[in-house]
């Protein structure tokens, strides 16, 4: 089991060029652009990138899931499971002071935080990860520096569930009132304290003097500017009024990609689009048809064309290449029109059919939809597109559409992807996929404690899903960020966190 030692002070951002490595000078302030939070910035309910990026500044997690999807200790200095992975013990870092300058962090704070997020009564967003895994009474403190989590069921990836991946779970004082307004205080153990907040324009952070990591952060502060749209951010970066774009889609960022004066960070992630097909309704109730559709796609073209190569091929299972647990030996599904046509006729739809694809107007999704439309046309499937705005899609069509495209953010472990959209009981099971065999496999996977065991089950799941194809996973795209070359040490996660603890202006 993986308990790495103390955080390496100069952990640079892997996979992406950071000129000058950690060689940054102290002081200075920068402007970071971020998509405006979809809703109130409330630790319980935040469910989008803008929100979590905001939480992640003043707030910190037990563990940090880095860009290689490995866990780094933060508030938890180390952790270990019992043999079957049903009980996890976390050592809590001592001598941590909150950014209010006074409050000291204790194990009780951690307990309170975990209880709050795992309590169904609070209807926290984290429930989607905790449900069936952790319940309030499963959390207990042992002394002042140890927290023990007793799980409902064994879970080998539990530390990820309390890492930055479960982005709601920032550690807050036991006294914190989850009904209150977080944005008033921005209390947290992080390196920043809020000096100004406006739900419209953004947050201004200043360095928190009481931060527990000596000499950090380098910057005096930074302002997190909210934008409704990516375009102004890109223009802003090009024009210089913005120093860092926390996240942009490869499409929008076209200009940035081939702009030599801009540093682009492409972080491998498990973020992806799911093209679900309702398995319990014609026409997609036949797996041949679903396979045919999957086969009609030319994924390399999608990746190179649509995503500017900033993505990994998807193989119609949640196991992204980014996951250490993924078994890459499973053959990649490639475009094969003739086979697809065969399958169509086997599925009794030799001369095609009409179907409506619902999705929403964001990122590259409409384009993807149109490309799928193009591809499907080759096997006589006529797709009618219904592109809604996000709210309409999610509230009206997402879970009851014959076919749809849903965007899934990054997770550090495939667990959520395996459960919510695919389990018979999955809350996001838009494909209405019900396969007991699959459910049991997922059970095994979750329980598996070490990596090899996990990979073994993964292989079976991948094969099964590839055959059933309830959902097409066309690609897993990189998390794209960009900054001026004069800025180094910024860390990004596929989840959408941006960590500026060690960031600064290059000397």
């Amino acid at each position: 089991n993986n308990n790495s030692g103390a955080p390496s002070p100069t952990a640079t951002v892997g996979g992406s060029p950071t000129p000058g490595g950690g060689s940054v000078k102290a002081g200075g302030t920068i402007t970071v652009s971020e998509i405006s939070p979809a809703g109130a910035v409330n630790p319980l309910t935040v469910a989008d990138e803008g929100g979590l990026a905001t939480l992640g500044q003043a707030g910190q997690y037990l563990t940090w899931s880095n860009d290689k999807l490995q866990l780094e200790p933060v508030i938890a200095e180390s952790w270990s499971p019992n043999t079957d992975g049903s009980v996890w013990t976390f050592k809590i870092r001592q001598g941590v002071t909150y950014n209010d300058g006074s409050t000291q962090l204790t194990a009780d704070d951690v307990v309170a935080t975990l209880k709050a997020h795992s309590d169904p009564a609070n209807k926290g967003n984290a429930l989607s990860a905790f449900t069936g895994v952790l319940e309030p009474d499963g959390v207990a403190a042992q002394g002042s520096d140890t927290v023990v989590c007793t799980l409902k069921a064994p879970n080998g990836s539990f530390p990820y569930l309390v890492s930055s991946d479960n982005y709601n779970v920032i550690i807050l004082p036991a006294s914190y009132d989850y009904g209150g307004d977080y944005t008033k205080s921005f209390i947290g153990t992080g390196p920043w304290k809020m000096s100004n907040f406006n739900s419209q324009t953004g947050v201004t952070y200043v360095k928190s003097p009481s931060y527990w990591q000596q000499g950090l952060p380098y910057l005096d502060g930074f302002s997190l500017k909210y934008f409704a749209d990516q375009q102004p951010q890109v223009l802003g970066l090009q024009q210089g009024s913005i120093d860092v774009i926390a996240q942009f889609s490869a499409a929008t960022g076209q200009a940035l990609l081939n702009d030599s004066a801009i540093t682009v960070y492409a972080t491998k992630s498990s973020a992806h689009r799911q093209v679900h097909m309702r398995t319990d309704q014609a026409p997609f109730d036949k797996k041949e048809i679903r396979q045919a559709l999957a086969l009609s796609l030319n994924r390399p073209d999608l990746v190179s064309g649509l995503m500017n190569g900033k993505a990994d091929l998807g193989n119609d299972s949640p196991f992204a290449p980014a996951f250490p647990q993924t078994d890459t030996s499973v053959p990649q599904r490639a475009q094969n029109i003739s086979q697809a046509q065969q399958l169509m006729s086997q599925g009794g739809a030799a001369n095609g059919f009409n179907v409506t694809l619902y999705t929403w107007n964001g990122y590259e999704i409409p384009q993807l939809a149109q490309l799928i439309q193009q591809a499907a046309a080759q096997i006589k499937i006529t797709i009618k597109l219904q592109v809604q705005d996000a709210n309409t899609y999610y509230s009206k069509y997402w879970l009851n559409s014959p076919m749809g495209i849903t965007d899934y953010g990054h997770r550090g472990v495939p667990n959520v992807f395996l459960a919510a959209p695919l389990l018979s009981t999955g809350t996001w099971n838009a494909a209405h996929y019900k396969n007991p065999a699959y459910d049991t496999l997922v059970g095994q996977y979750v329980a598996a404690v070490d990596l090899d065991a996990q990979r073994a089950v993964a292989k079976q799941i991948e094969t099964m899903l590839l055959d059933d194809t309830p959902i097409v996973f066309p690609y897993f795209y990189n998390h794209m960020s960009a900054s001026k070359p004069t800025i180094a040490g910024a860390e990004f996660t596929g989840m959408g966190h941006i960590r500026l603890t060690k960031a600064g202006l290059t000397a």
Partner: protein
Amino acid sequence: MISRPRPEDVGTEAGVDPVLQAFGVEGQHDSGDGSRSTARRERFRLLLRSPTFIIGTLVVLFWIFCAIFGKQIAPYNYLGEPGSILHKLEPPSSQHWFGTDDLGRDVLSRVIVGSRGILVVALLATALGTVAGTAIGLATGYVGGWLDEVVSRILDAFLAIPVVILGVLALVALGPSSVTVILVIGFVFTPIIARTVRAAVLPEREQEYVAAAELRHERRSYVMFVEILPNVSGPILVEFTVRVGYAIFAIVTLTFLGFGIQPPAPDWGLQIASQYIYLSGHIWWPTLFPALAIASLVVAVNLVSDGLARVFER
């Protein structure tokens, strides 16, 4: 009060404006000399003598042609072929005069085919609004009294909300689709047109042929639609063309904001909305050409309405 015809007015106006000048001369034909050309033919001749009107008409006709035969004359499939994605965002070239868009689709083809959507939607929407507006305008203008008071207030209330915003409101409510766009724009235009028509009806209502009709105890509907309507057809026609222009404008804007027509329609506004993000990379062609198309169409429509206005108004 005695009021004599004052041809000297004809005189001055005539000097001013060839169009009215012609009417001055109509005035002369009154005194029964041989040529009895009707006002209508007169107007037509005048329109044909206004170059701007001609140009406007030609351009509009061009786009109508594209709207009808778009798919046939477009050099490529406006939806693109599988694999065309690999040729995305290519600058204008001999194969792709207007270049390609972010999915490698031929911009020229999309502009050509795109004319249909916008024209159909804009025309239907405006027609809807004009019919409704005319009916309301006639009723309020002619019947007057409390009906006028009440309806006018309501119209005012609607007029207080800018078209685009009202559009956003309604479209968010009904969910975006061409049909809803038509309904919404039509609905939004109704009060505007109603007001114009009412304004045109009020003076007509004072005309004595209306009194004469009432003296025959005509039904109100008859007076409105048979007696008055033909006399306000001019302003209505003008208003219609003007509104078509605004309709296009509004639709494009709504689409740009994402509340209007949805992908993959080759709608111009949609093209701009989805392509303008590349401008920052100096990829101007997928945005510029649809923009020009819009501009040319609306300008043309305005030229036409301008011409008509000069002939019809007063």
